[in-house]
């Protein structure tokens, strides 16, 4: 090779690059392949240069550089993994470019933060994507301690120690307004929604709107068979059944007889049903799987629940390894999304039965149902709230981790467990 020969080293725009101190990660979003570079300063320097906006994923390499074994190895690796390659500079009169993957959303409310802007609240309703309504608490007059399951995932339970329910007229007003947002899903939950005083009116009203409706019940609600069957009838008679999904939750230990009765009853209904199992330990999972197989339950989901005592189970079964993170094969769109918003929380609002409105149930209250309009609480979340913008890049140790955007966004599990990384990637203060 000619000693003055040079090449353009390029990375393809579908490759995600992350560099933290002496570690770099290149992830091919097309084939899910990963290239990790550690403690190789000359290669890290090159990756940093490639990532600079000025360089647009293309830099010049001279022979003295690409002949170095570690750099040659790096180039071979990215070529083998279809992440990029070399182009002879003599082919080009100008330096070619790649369009570097940097996400911009022109109407992002966060574009305006820090700038003078009376217009922050403009078209704010369009940011609403999902709303969860906990319509009642303590409807069964039981006085047991509030179950905190709803703080980890959507779950049918009381959210208040007092008996209360949301006003139907105000609910209708909000739902009516939601028709003009980008809302695609409304979740209806509560201590036991079948006991809601205006259930028929609510279901009828929801049937008039085109969005997806998800109803949440606990299998023990079946004990109140009259109300349970009446509710299922409402759903069965809906003109928009294809937009309805019923989520029915099961906790272990299961009441076996009740479980089979519920299954028998629901399998003849003509609505979409998702069977949801709350898992607290390995045995729960095994039992749930047995049930799923035995009763041939097609639509089912498992919801791990952190009860304060089962961290070991979470570490063994739930915490993600690097392999699992990569095997999930996050798309480029997902990765880019995670750089600016919390994908699991953005656009969502929750209204609790006591009227408190939150962006998510673990974040501070944004307003009061009936007092503050949806527009106002959305505006408050965008301008002052933190939930929708809860990014891994803002918290430790994820901030220092090259996998920060490959991992799923911060969820309510992190809040419940009290640590930001529910993974095995970061251990002993190191990646």
């Amino acid at each position, binding site marked *: 090779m000619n000693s003055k020969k040079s090449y353009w080293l390029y990375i393809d725009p579908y490759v995600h690059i992350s560099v933290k101190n002496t570690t770099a990660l290149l992830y091919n979003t097309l084939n899910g392949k990963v290239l990790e570079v550690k403690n190789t300063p000359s290669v890290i320097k090159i990756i940093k240069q490639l990532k600079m906006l000025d360089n647009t994923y293309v830099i010049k390499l001279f022979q003295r550089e690409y002949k170095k074994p570690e750099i040659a190895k790096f180039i071979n690796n990215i070529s083998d993994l279809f992440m990029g390659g070399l182009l002879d500079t003599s082919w080009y009169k100008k330096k070619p470019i790649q369009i570097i993957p940097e996400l911009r959303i022109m109407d992002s409310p966060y574009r305006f933060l820090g700038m003078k802007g009376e217009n922050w*609240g403009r078209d704010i309703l369009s940011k609403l994507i999902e709303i969860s309504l906990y319509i009642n608490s303590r409807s069964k007059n039981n006085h047991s301690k509030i179950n905190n399951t709803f703080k980890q995932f959507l779950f049918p339970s009381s959210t208040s120690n007092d008996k209360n329910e949301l006003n139907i007229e105000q609910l209708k007003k909000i739902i009516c307004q939601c028709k003009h947002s980008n809302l695609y899903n409304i979740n209806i939950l509560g201590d036991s929604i079948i006991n809601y005083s205006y259930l028929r009116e609510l279901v009828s009203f929801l049937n008039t709107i085109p969005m997806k409706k998800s109803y949440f019940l606990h299998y023990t609600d079946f004990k109140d068979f009259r109300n349970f069957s009446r509710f299922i009838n409402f759903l069965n008679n809906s003109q928009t059944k294809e937009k309805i999904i019923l989520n029915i939750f099961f906790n272990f230990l299961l009441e076996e007889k009740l479980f089979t009765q519920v299954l028998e009853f629901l399998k003849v209904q003509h609505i979409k049903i998702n069977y949801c199992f709350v898992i607290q330990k390995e045995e729960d999972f095994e039992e749930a799987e047995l049930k799923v197989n035995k009763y041939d339950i097609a639509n089912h989901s498992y919801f791990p629940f952190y009860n304060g005592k089962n961290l070991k189970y979470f570490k063994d079964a739930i915490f993600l390894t690097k392999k699992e993170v990569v095997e999930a094969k996050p798309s480029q769109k997902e990765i880019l999304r995670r750089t600016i918003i919390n994908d699991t929380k953005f656009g969502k609002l929750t209204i609790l039965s006591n009227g408190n409105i939150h962006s998510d149930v673990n974040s501070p209250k944004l307003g009061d149902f009936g007092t503050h309009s949806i527009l106002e609480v959305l505006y408050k979340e965008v301008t002052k709230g933190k939930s929708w913008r809860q990014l891994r890049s803002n918290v430790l140790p994820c901030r220092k981790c090259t996998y920060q955007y490959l991992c799923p966004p911060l969820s309510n599990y992190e809040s419940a467990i009290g640590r930001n990384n529910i993974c095995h990637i970061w251990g002993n203060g190191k990646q």
Partner: protein
Amino acid sequence: MKENRNEKSKQVESVILFKSEGGGNYLYSKKNNQILLIHPVLHYLIKLDQSDNDVKNWLENLDNGDIHIENYGHFSKEIIIHYYNKFKLLSENGYFDKVDHANRLSGRLNKKTVKSNFINTSSVVFEVTQNCNLKCVYCGYGKYYNDYEKRNGRSICPKIAKRYLDSLFKLWNVPEFRSFTKKVHIAFYGGEPLLNIDFIKEITQYVKKFDSPNIIFTFGMTTNGTLLHKYMDFLVENKFELGISLDGCERNNEYRVYKNGRSTFKTIIKNVRYLQEKHPEYFEKTVNFISVLHNKNSVEEIVDFFIKNFNKMPIISEINPGGIDPKKKVEFLKFFKKYNESINQVKDFTILKKNILRVPEIKEAFYMIMNYCGFIYKDFRSFYFSPDNRSFIPTSTCVPFYKKTFITAYGTVLPCESVRHKYALGVVDESRININFQQITDKYNEYYDKIKNQCFTCYNAKRCGVCALTIGIDGDKPICYGHMDYDAFSNYLGSCISTLEKNSSLYKKLIKEVLIS
């Protein structure tokens, strides 16, 4: 993957290959909306595929010798196999998948959207008066045009304006109102609006009654500047965003004359200087200049004049070529000048580059990045919901009421001041407002139907800059001047990428300074 190029004129290919002036080979995938710099061997393989060859078969039959690619040299079979595998990877990930272009452009306007836009409109412009104390040669209501509403010096009745505003304001409590805080811009247009200052004062005062912490009214006006000395205190007090029409230096401004043919230049400059001296902060922050390009000026002269005299970058526009009386077309063309042609004659770009989007090639590169690189989204909706599942309305015609509404002195409601009266959306008089959302919807869908077949074969339909109302859409066979076939689109992409290649920091500048996030 394979497509017959003979069918090219009837359908849109999924992958567009193009080359930059610097020699770079690139591909654009319509399906994935992504541009990739590609190796010459990969380029060669894609070309083979596009020419209806079975690439796999071709490779299997290739002996072990090198292949030669013109301008790039010899490549071994090992290299070819590597790029064949990359070709397969791209293929498996949809890069060559067909896009149902016609279906994607089959969007229809619906009544709900039109009504919602009316409620959520951000700007209302009033034609304060048809009167003007000038008689500019190229005036849109002058001798060269023949398709405007009859003009008899009429001034708008304040009751008409109030009737319209009332109907709007009362809708800010309905569920369709999507904003919590918002700026609503009230603008005054003419003729020369300052000839009817009483109306402007009355309406400014009127809307202030509706001021709230959430709705902030802003005011704006385009004036010829000859009466500025009389009313500047009022304009400053109400923070009017002011656009002053002036075409440059005295020679540049020769078409802007009083009715007796006398030059307006000295009066305007005197008034502008007075405003600058009396209200320096307001002048610096709120005053802009608007210049019309013609045969007595140029982009370079205009910019030079305003930078030197007022340190301001003017807004430069062409004379409206629509609605010209055919009998006067030859005479009209003598003073008509195209912006892009004039800017190409600019010798010193350093001044212009203070506002980089004023440079047409940079502006085009910017829009190309926005539309064809997959990393920039107009809003969260388009980001969240895959474009494959959505259909778009063809052309870039503003959806009625979305950006602004223009009310003429007669009370005719128009989409904007540049649109001819035959495209009226409704009328408003002192007692009632007549806007039929269904009729507007039907009319617009009719317009789209007339042009959509051209859009279906247009490679640049996504970045369309053509307003259907400016291409004679009400006629039998409107022709879109922005239509691009494969080759035109390939050249367009090549030219945009070349602009970015020429200036290595431009991409960063566009992303960081223009597309702040």
